[in-house]
């Protein structure tokens, strides 16, 4: 599969212009920034070379389509219709006629070109501030031609970062559970895809039930629950090699696994005699530690990004609520006090928020609260939805949603959805089959 690819990246012109365009991503953005993504220009010879290798008629247009789609789905940008563009892509990349782009109300412009150089794909792109009539950024990449989609995602991340001041989340992947078949006998497989739904691959065959896959920080390992031989156990999968192993030697069900932020430990629940407690296992020395010890159900543990705290779900008060404790299991504090039940807490990569699922009066909500439980904010309400996972920049949540069946028990479906932290920009992520339990990788390139 995709190895850690080598992408040579260099700054074309070291310039430092004070950005005049600023996109505020901390509020719901009802007026996305109008911008023009000019197709990357390509000389005829390079075009033919890439057509032969990649079976794409014009790889320049394909890459800019990826950029355009990413920026649109972020909800922060409004890519303008290419038909309105007055300037040819190759000329625009040399020096845009700012008044032309101003005329179609573009505030920013992305131009670039693609070359075939010694069996490699070389892409350069520039970001222009139309109102200030200035270049904001210029970068070039060289990589193997097969990485062309990633180049599109990296350009998107660079543009997003330059215009919002925060890291992007486009050069990322989603691991999830693919679902097929009747509700009473679902067939589930691990699947992985790019953040935009491309390059979907199945990682297991569906012979056994699999649930809740989660990436390690390097996004090359996955921990998940498998019912292999009808024994629900936490497993570890190396995505590149396909090797799998059981995590630990527990005399019973282990479930709800996640990696520690340094990737060295797996934290999970172990159920025995009607009690579920939280354990960690060190992946290097295999040492198992018991973190909680209570007759209640303690599950869904998630570390803070600094690794010092753990948030988890417990019904020790009588009902499912969210708690925070120190990493050694001391100083346990309940943080959810609103009406209803709370589950699946997951710590934001920025450290300041915990996302959760809430069940109240027959409705399911995805929400966020501060790590002390204050400032609860519900982002979306539905018949059934759960299991939020953060984008690596902590601005978007992906989760899954199930439909209510009709009186005959028909019409069931499960789909992936995403929503901005602001509560805006809710959208479905298309998958080839039904889907659940999404987990977002970290940024693959930095």
């Amino acid at each position, binding site marked *: 599969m995709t190895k850690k690819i080598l992408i040579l990246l260099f700054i074309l012109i070291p310039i430092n212009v004070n950005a005049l365009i600023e996109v505020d991503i901390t509020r719901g953005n009802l007026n996305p920034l109008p911008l023009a993504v000019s197709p990357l220009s390509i000389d005829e010879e390079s075009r033919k070379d890439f057509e032969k290798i990649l079976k794409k008629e014009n790889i320049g247009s394909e890459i800019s389509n990826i950029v355009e789609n990413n920026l649109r789905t972020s909800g922060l940008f409004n890519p303008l219709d290419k038909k309105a563009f007055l300037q040819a892509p190759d000329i625009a990349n040399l020096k845009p006629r700012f008044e032309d782009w101003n005329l179609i109300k573009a505030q920013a412009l992305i131009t670039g070109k693609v070359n075939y150089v010694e069996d490699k794909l070389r892409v350069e792109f520039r970001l222009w501030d139309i109102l200030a009539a200035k270049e904001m950024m210029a970068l070039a990449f060289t990589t193997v031609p097969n990485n062309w989609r990633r180049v599109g995602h990296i350009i998107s991340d660079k543009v997003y970062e330059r215009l919002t001041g925060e890291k992007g989340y486009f050069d990322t992947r989603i691991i999830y559970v693919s679902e097929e078949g009747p509700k009473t006998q679902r067939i589930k497989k691990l699947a992985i895809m790019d953040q935009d739904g491309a390059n979907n691959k199945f990682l297991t065959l569906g012979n056994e039930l699999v649930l809740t896959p989660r990436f390690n920080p390097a996004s090359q390992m996955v921990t998940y629950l498998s019912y292999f031989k009808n024994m629900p156990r936490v497993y570890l999968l190396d995505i590149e090699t396909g090797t799998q192993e059981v995590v630990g030697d527990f005399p019973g069900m282990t479930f709800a696994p996640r990696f520690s932020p340094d990737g060295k430990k797996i934290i999970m629940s172990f*159920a025995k005699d009607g009690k579920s407690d939280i354990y960690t296992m060190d992946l290097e020395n295999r040492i198992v530690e018991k973190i909680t010890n209570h007759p209640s159900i303690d599950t869904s543990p998630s570390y803070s990004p600094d690794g010092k705290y753990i948030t988890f779900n417990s019904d020790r008060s009588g009902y499912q609520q969210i708690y925070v404790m120190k990493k050694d299991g001391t100083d346990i504090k309940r943080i959810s006090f609103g009406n209803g039940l709370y589950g699946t807490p997951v710590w934001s990569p920025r450290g300041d928020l915990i996302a959760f699922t809430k069940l109240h009066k027959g409705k399911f909500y995805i929400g966020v609260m501060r790590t002390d439980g204050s400032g609860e904010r519900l982002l979306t309400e539905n018949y059934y939805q759960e299991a939020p996972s953060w984008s690596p920049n902590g601005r978007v949540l992906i989760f899954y949603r199930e439909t209510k069946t009709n009186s005959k028990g028909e019409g069931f479906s499960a789909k992936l959805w995403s929503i901005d932290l602001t509560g805006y920009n809710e959208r479905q992520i298309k998958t080839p089959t039904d889907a659940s339990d999404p987990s977002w990788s970290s940024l693959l390139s930095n």
Partner: protein
Amino acid sequence: MRLNKILKNTLLVLTACLVLSACATKKEVATDIQGQMQGDVYTGTDTVEYLADGVPDRVFFATNESILTTASRETLRAQAAWLRKNPSINVVLEGHADERGTREYNLALGERRANAAKDYLMTYGISSDRISVLSYGKERPVDSGSNPLAWSKNRRSVTVKAN
């Protein structure tokens, strides 16, 4: 006078019947569900299979609960008697939850329900060596409906022969 009184009473009873029957047709669905649930615990037999004559294979639970009802304890006593009579048989107790809960919590809840059944079988003399526990959480509903009756059928612990 007396006849009058009798007539009056009959009339009252008749009117009452009329009102009741009107109610019954209107709330047909509700009554149907009521007949199969007590509180929100399933008491019907639709989905129940039998390990042996008079030995139902499953017990049902209230929402978010793992407490055994009187009926459940009766079922488990029958299972214990059957297991004592058949000492070579081992069983798996498969615990399940309904779809109205988060996946991970439901896995734990299924385990807790199956263990409640296991503990009860043990108090009736069945060795823990003969009983294993397996939770499916909300992964294997018997009824795909999205309504209280379907959910009540799905909140269950099923005793399955392991050999």
